[in-house]
Every structure is written in structure tokens, then in C-alpha cells.
């Protein structure tokens, strides 16, 4: 039971987890992440890997759109850049897969820098349109640069190998993807404890006074684009090792909207928001599918009848969030935390 929080140093006050319950919950969460592969069946492990990939990419988009205020609809295209880089390296170079993932991230970051250039002049919807244009240009490149991308038939990857073992099982991939994603999320959380993260938020909130404080708009916006697409590139690389086929249609434009929806549903400009949003967007359609499976004994052709309903329910859930919880799932968590903060002494 807690009656207050007292800290003795600035370091303690600036820690990521400041209270004991927070640290306990985090330890529990880490434990369950470690235990999961031994408890879950293959199907759920498949979903867990997909969630890890999507969390990494959504966290990246959240840095750009949620924290810096630059709306981007190019996240899937940046992922594709990472996926193609990783695919090409895996097939043509003997480099270890972790290095390939890093290279995927850096290639995507470079592309992100170029795509980010218009952001100095255009904002909001206009920037969103510019990133859509970039997505379609990249798609064109993937289809036509056949010597590297193998055109429409795409690249088929050999599995990643770690210490001589090929990573083919979902449980093996899980143990690679989850730590990588955890590191990336930790990096993002750290970023917003320092001058760089604060500069991003400053640009989002009021760019004129950011300039007066000595924040260079061009540099900072481009930096945000680069980090965000680096995250997308690494996520795309993981995606390539996961599905082992990369084609121009692997990362459709809808996938970019998926990430934008994820950070809106989860909570823009919060680390937790991108995580919750990506989990929600990945798992809820699956859960709805289970609902239909349960109904099948009662309604023999439930699947045929309700499949369209599933999409509608999913869409309604998103709209519901926009209306009733515009700050997203993260805000619900915060509210619950506040309620229990000094419970039962204060409500």
C-alpha cells in the first residue's frame, strides 16, 4: 500500500519507472514475455511475432506523427524498403542477419530523409499526400528494378541463421523479434527524456517558438523522419525474415493506414499508445474471428454470413475510439493508474 512517493535524487525522479508497483508490473510483464513461447501454441506464437513487428513499426510512426506532428502515410513503404534490403542482403551477401536488419533500418532511414524533405514547407494533409506520392513511387521502383527486387515475383528468402541454427520456428523467431522490439521501444522512451525528444514535441506544439529556442526546424524534422523510417526499416526486415517472401504487394498502402489507425487508437504521442494500438489492431480482427468460430455450432454458416460483419465491427470499434476516447487506449491506462495511484487513501 502506498501513501505517497518521495524521491531523493533527480535521477530517481527522471527514471522511466518511478514507483514500485510500476517496476513490479514491468517485471511481471517481462517474465510473461519470456514464458509465452512455452505456453502458447503455434498459431498464437505466429500472432505474437506479428504483434512484435507491428509494435516496432507503430512506435516509429508514433515518433514522427504522434510526437513530431508530421502526418505520414508512408510507413508501409519504408517497411518495404527495409524488407527488400534485408531480402537482397540475405540472398547475396554472407552477412549475419542482425547486421542485415540494421542495414535495412539505415536504408529506410536514408529514403525517409529524402521523403521528409518537403516537410519543411508542407504540413498536415499536404504532407500526408506527399508521403502517399512517395509510397507509390517506391512501389513503382519495387516492380521495375528487377535486377534487385526481382519484379512482381519478388524475393524468396532463405531463413535467418543464428549461431548455425536456421530460424524457422515461430518460437525461435519470437526470441529474436521480441528483444529487438523491446530495445526499440526502450530507445524511443529514452529519446523523450532528452533534448532531441523534447525538440520533436516542441515542433509539434508550436514551431515558431521552437525556432526562437534555437531548434533548427529542418534538421529536427528530418531527424524525426530518419528515426521513424529506421524503425520501419527494421520492422520490415523482421517481416521479411518472418514471411520469407517479399513482393511489391507485401506492403500495400492499406498497411500504412493500419499504422496510422494503430497510433490513433492507442494514443498519439505516448510510448504506451503505439504498443497498445499495434496490439489492438493486430489481435482484435483475430478475436472477432474466434467469435465467429464459437457461433458456428449454433449458426452453421456463421462464417459466410458474419465475415463482412467482422470488418464492420472492427471499423466501428475504431470509430468508437475516435469519438469516445480520442486520446486512445493509453489514456484509459493512465486513468486507471491515477485511480489506483494512492489507493485506498485517495480516489
Amino acid at each position, binding site marked *: 500500500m502506498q501513501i505517497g512517493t518521495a524521491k531523493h535524487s533527480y535521477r530517481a525522479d527522471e527514471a522511466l519507472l518511478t514507483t514500485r508497483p510500476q517496476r513490479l508490473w514491468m517485471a511481471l510483464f517481462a517474465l510473461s514475455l519470456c514464458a509465452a513461447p512455452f505456453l502458447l501454441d503455434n498459431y498464437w506464437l505466429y500472432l505474437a511475432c506479428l504483434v512484435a513487428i507491428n509494435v516496432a513499426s507503430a512506435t516509429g510512426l508514433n515518433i514522427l506523427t504522434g510526437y513530431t506532428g508530421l502526418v505520414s502515410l508512408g510507413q508501409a513503404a519504408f517497411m518495404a524498403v527495409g524488407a527488400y534490403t534485408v531480402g537482397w542482403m540475405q540472398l547475396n551477401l554472407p552477412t549475419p542477419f542482425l547486421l542485415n536488419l540494421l542495414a535495412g533500418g539505415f536504408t529506410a532511414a536514408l529514403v525517409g530523409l529524402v521523403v521528409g524533405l518537403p516537410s519543411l514547407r508542407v504540413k498536415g494533409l499536404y504532407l500526408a499526400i506527399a508521403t502517399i506520392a512517395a509510397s507509390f513511387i517506391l512501389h513503382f521502383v519495387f516492380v521495375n528494378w528487377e535486377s534487385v527486387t526481382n519484379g512482381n515475383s519478388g524475393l524468396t528468402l532463405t531463413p535467418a541463421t543464428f549461431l548455425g541454427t536456421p530460424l524457422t520456428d515461430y518460437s525461435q523467431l519470437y526470441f529474436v523479434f521480441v528483444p529487438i522490439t523491446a530495445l526499440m521501444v526502450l530507445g524511443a522512451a529514452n529519446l523523450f527524456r*532528452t533534448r532531441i525528444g523534447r525538440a520533436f514535441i516542441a515542433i*509539434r506544439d508550436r514551431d515558431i*517558438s521552437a525556432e*526562437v529556442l*534555437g531548434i533548427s526546424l529542418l534538421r529536427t524534422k528530418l531527424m524525426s523522419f530518419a528515426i521513424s523510417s529506421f524503425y520501419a526499416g527494421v520492422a520490415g526486415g523482421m517481416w521479411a525474415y518472418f514471411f520469407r517472401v517479399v513482393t511489391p504487394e507485401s506492403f500495400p498502402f492499406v498497411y500504412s493506414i493500419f499504422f496510422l489507425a494503430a497510433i490513433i487508437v492507442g494514443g498519439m504521442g505516448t510510448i504506451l499508445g503505439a504498443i497498445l494500438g499495434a496490439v489492438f489492431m493486430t489481435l482484435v480482427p483475430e478475436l472477432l474471428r474466434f467469435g465467429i468460430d464459437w457461433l458456428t455450432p449454433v449458426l452453421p454458416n456463421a462464417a459466410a454470413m458474419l465475415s463482412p460483419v467482422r470488418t464492420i465491427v472492427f471499423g466501428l470499434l475504431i470509430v468508437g475510439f475516435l469519438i469516445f476516447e480520442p486520446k486512445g487506449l493509453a489514456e484509459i491506462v493512465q486513468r486507471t493508474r491515477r485511480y489506483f495511484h494512492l489507493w485506498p487513501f485517495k480516489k
Partner: protein
Amino acid sequence: MTGQSETGASGAARLEVEGLSLSFGGLKALSTVSFAAEPGSITALIGPNGAGKTSMFNCISGFYHPQQGAVRFDGRDVTRMHPPERAALGFARTFQNIALFRGMTVLDNIKLGRHAHMKTNLLQALAYWGPAQREEMALRAEVEERIIDFLEINHIRNMPVAALSYGLQKRVELARALAMRPRILLLDEPVAGMNREETEDMARFILDVKEEWGTTILMVEHDMGMVMDISDHVVVLNFGQVIASGLPHEVQADPHVTEAYLGSGDPAALMARLRGEGPDTGRNREEVA
């Protein structure tokens, strides 16, 4: 404090405006304005609405680029510099309509003031390791001990700025400007819209900044009581021109100033204007400006 030697900037600076002219298309906002703010003093820029005070401020802080004339900072011509470069030199300003970052806490807003003088790079920031962490801790200590205590805002440090009263927001904006360790502080209407108590608090803080930090202060203000009480030097603008400058009591007694604010000193002429009989009413003049 370590930062002063790091940045190479220390002590108050002399700001000099020399023959500055600014026009928007055909509209002359400023014509050959010259004045100086002496190191470690408080200079007030006053004048009726539309006299060109805010345009002057925007020229000094780098948002407008004047067609003629120069702004000198300790003798160095900064007329063409962009705002971030000026910040690195030691310019800090507050805005007439508070320009804080509403989504952030008071503490983070103030910390942003130090941005230009910090060194943490992207990789260090992602790892929050070694130098990055040390730099953040030094910043936190400085902000807490030098600024938050000084401006008496301890109780609100973790509150989001959007939740604060107007007077407190103005004070946080001053805090953010102070975090820049300014060599010249530009205050755009620091007490506009404040009640008497808040105005007195702000006047006290401005005087304290001058005395304890020795910063050169240039402010635009409409509250004549405060301007006359705390300024060392007053510059009066009207229609984009300097019509008087000097010590507060000299300026107060200057007939040009009275005329600019109240119209002609002749009661009969004033009455005539009030009734709108004169060809050149005060209202029309303001619209022109």
C-alpha cells in the same frame, strides 16, 4: 555553473538598432528607427497600438528581415541571422500571446530553453547513456535550483502548461527564456492581461533578473505604471518612428508623447476630435497605422 564557459557567452550584451526600416508592400511599419539597450539595463519600448513595437521585436528576433538598417549585438551585425543562430548567441524572447508548448509539463518547457546549448546526439539519446544522462541531470539541477526556485513555481513543475492560469503561464514563459541563459532578454508585453497582483509579481521578477543575473532586458509594454517604475530607459515609437527617448520621467513630460497617446494637448482640439469633427481623428490615425 558550467555552461557559461561552454557557450563562450557570458554577461549582458549591448543591443543596438541602427536606422532600421521595414515595410510590407506599400505599408511602412518602421522607418529609420535607431536606439540602443545598454548592458544590464531595462529598456522599455512603448507607443500606441500599431506604432510598430511588435514589428521591431520581430526584426530583432529574426522573424522579419528589415529592408534597411542593422541590428547589432555587442557590435556584431546580426540583421540577417535566423532565429536559431540568434538563440545560440544569447537572444531569448517571450511572446505577447504566450507561446509555450501546451502538451508538455512546466519542467519540460523550461528544459527546452537549454536546447541550443546541449550536446546529446541521437545515438546517446536513444541509449540514455553516459554523457546524455549526465547532461540531463545537470540540466535538471540547474532548472530546479536556479530557475524554478527563483521564479517560485515549484508547486506547478509537473503540471501540463495548458492547465495553468494566464499569469503563471507568463511566468513559465519567462522561466523558459531564462533557461536559455540569455545575454539579452526580449519581453513582449510581459504583463498584458494580468491583474494588479500578478503585474507586481512579474515586475519584481523582471527587476530580480536584472539585478541577480545582470541580463540586458528590452521589453514592449502597455502598462505605463510598470514601465515608469522599473525601466532605466524608455523609447517611444509612433507610426514606425522614434518620437522620444530618455529616462522615464523625461519621456513622461515630453509633449510629443502626450500627443501620441492622447492627441493634441489643446482641450478644445481634443473635444473637437471626440465629436469627430476634425479631419484627422485619432481613430483614423490608428487605422492607418
